[in-house]
């Protein structure tokens, strides 16, 4: 098997900055106070994801799941270690981050799809399919700021799944949207999985993870504490909610 994602002892330190303006920086420097507070969001995490597998990232809040996704997507760079990815990475990291409220649905499809890495011919080709999946035909030329939360999320999801990336990152998106569309999303993800797409999913919805993932990785305080069977990972997570591990 060819690996799609290779994370080699990646460490990400966050510095919580106390000073955000020139005034604050000056005051803190004069008083010789520290301007930073450091902590490790990820601490020597290694992970290899083979092509075509779906991995669920589990962990309590603040365990480093989202940070790991951001390292894989390239939004953040590791302070130590190395992250490598094969092919196009696209993410459902906060649906609709690229949707602009003042633009219409149609304009947003082109803009957001381009942001996710599609070119003009590709977008034109997939346009109808994106619209149909999002079920926004009637509101295509309405500004997105008038969309309901459900429509907004449907549009964002639809554009993202049509990117056809090699690696698909999904962060806490199934929590929103109406139940009917959630079922549709789930089916779409299952179809993508069957097509052999590599996916990394972060969700608190354990039944969903059990259904979709081949493998579960449990993180605690920035370290991998379990990597293997998804059911076992889910059970460990439930246990850790009552008795913290790590």
């Amino acid at each position, binding site marked *: 098997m060819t690996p799609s994602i290779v994370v080699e002892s990646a460490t990400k330190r966050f510095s919580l900055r106390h000073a955000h303006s*020139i005034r604050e920086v000056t005051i803190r420097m004069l008083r010789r106070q520290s301007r930073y507070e450091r902590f490790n969001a990820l601490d020597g995490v290694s992970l290899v994801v083979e092509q075509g597998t779906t991995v669920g990232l589990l962990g309590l809040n603040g365990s480093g799941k989202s940070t790991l996704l951001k390292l894989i997507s390239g939004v953040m760079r590791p302070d130590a270690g190395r992250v490598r990815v094969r092919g196009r*990475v696209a993410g459902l990291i906060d649906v609709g*981050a690229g949707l602009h409220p*003042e633009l219409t649905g149609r304009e947003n499809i082109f803009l957001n799809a381009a*942001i996710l890495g599609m070119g003009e011919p590709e977008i034109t080709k997939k346009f109808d399919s994106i619209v149909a999946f999002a079920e926004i035909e009637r509101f295509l030329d309405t500004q997105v700021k008038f969309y309901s939360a459900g429509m907004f999320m449907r549009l964002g999801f639809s554009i993202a799944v049509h990117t056809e990336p090699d690696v698909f990152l999904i962060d806490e998106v199934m929590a929103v949207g109406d139940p009917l569309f959630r079922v549709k999303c789930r089916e779409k993800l299952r179809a993508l999985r069957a097509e052999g797409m590599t996916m990394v999913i972060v969700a608190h919805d354990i039944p969903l993870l059990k259904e979709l993932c081949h493998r579960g990785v449990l993180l605690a305080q920035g370290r991998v504490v379990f990597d293997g069977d998804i059911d076992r990972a889910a059970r460990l997570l439930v246990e850790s909610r009552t008795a913290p591990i790590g």
Partner: protein
Amino acid sequence: MTAVRPAVPELVEPGRTGGLAQVLRHRYLLRLLVRRELKARYQGSVLGLGWSYVRPAVNFSVYFLMVGVFLKMNRNIDYFAIYLFSGMVLINFFTETLHSTTRSIRGNAPLIRKVYLPRELFPAASTLVSAVHFVPGLLILVVGALATGWTPSLVGAAAIVLALAVIAVLGLALGLLCAAYNVFFRDFEQVIDILNIVIVWSVPMIYPWMVVRDAVPDWALDLYLASPLVTAVSLFQRAFWFPAAARPFELPPHLFTNGVISLAGALLVLGLAQYVFSRKQRRFAEEL
């Protein structure tokens, strides 16, 4: 089970690509970003893009009335309106570029935190939006200059191109630097806005450069004339105003030589700015 993807791409570190070369590769996205900014800015406003005519028009009228008529500058300078306006459109282009590029990264924080894109795209898009706003002013300037009996010439055209190149390259270069620093120091944009007030008066646009020559020591004059902004504005005046002006007026010495040196300097700053930006942008996502 279908679709085993045919070509297997190499394992690469994500987020490694960058630089202005990447902006050229993302031309389509750049175009959409520019369109978005233009649309979003004027959406729901009565005049729409017309505002980019109104602002310079009011700005111009105030200066013309106060400095030209009341302070009698139009007695010293033939066609003071053209003199003033040729400097003003160019400097507005520059200050607006600085203003908007400085905010371009913070303004797109939600996107930068979530999706990896070459971050140079945002300052580049802001620069292009300023360029779009600059066009109406330039057209008015051409009409005005033609009305005063101006005839286009090859030397004039060269001056225009050189001045525009200096302003655009320098604007983008400083914009990249300011955008990066504004991520780390949130009040950087205030500093830039104050600087913009100074910039307007640091060029011979409301007054002739000779008043500086007659008032300051030689070294200060050399410093003043070394400013690429002074050179660019003088080049624009050389192109649009100087040929039709009847009264004797000296242009700053070695104008074209200084223009070429300014452009070379601006390109150097652009290279430096790109390097600093590419290092700073690694921490953008966590700082925003």
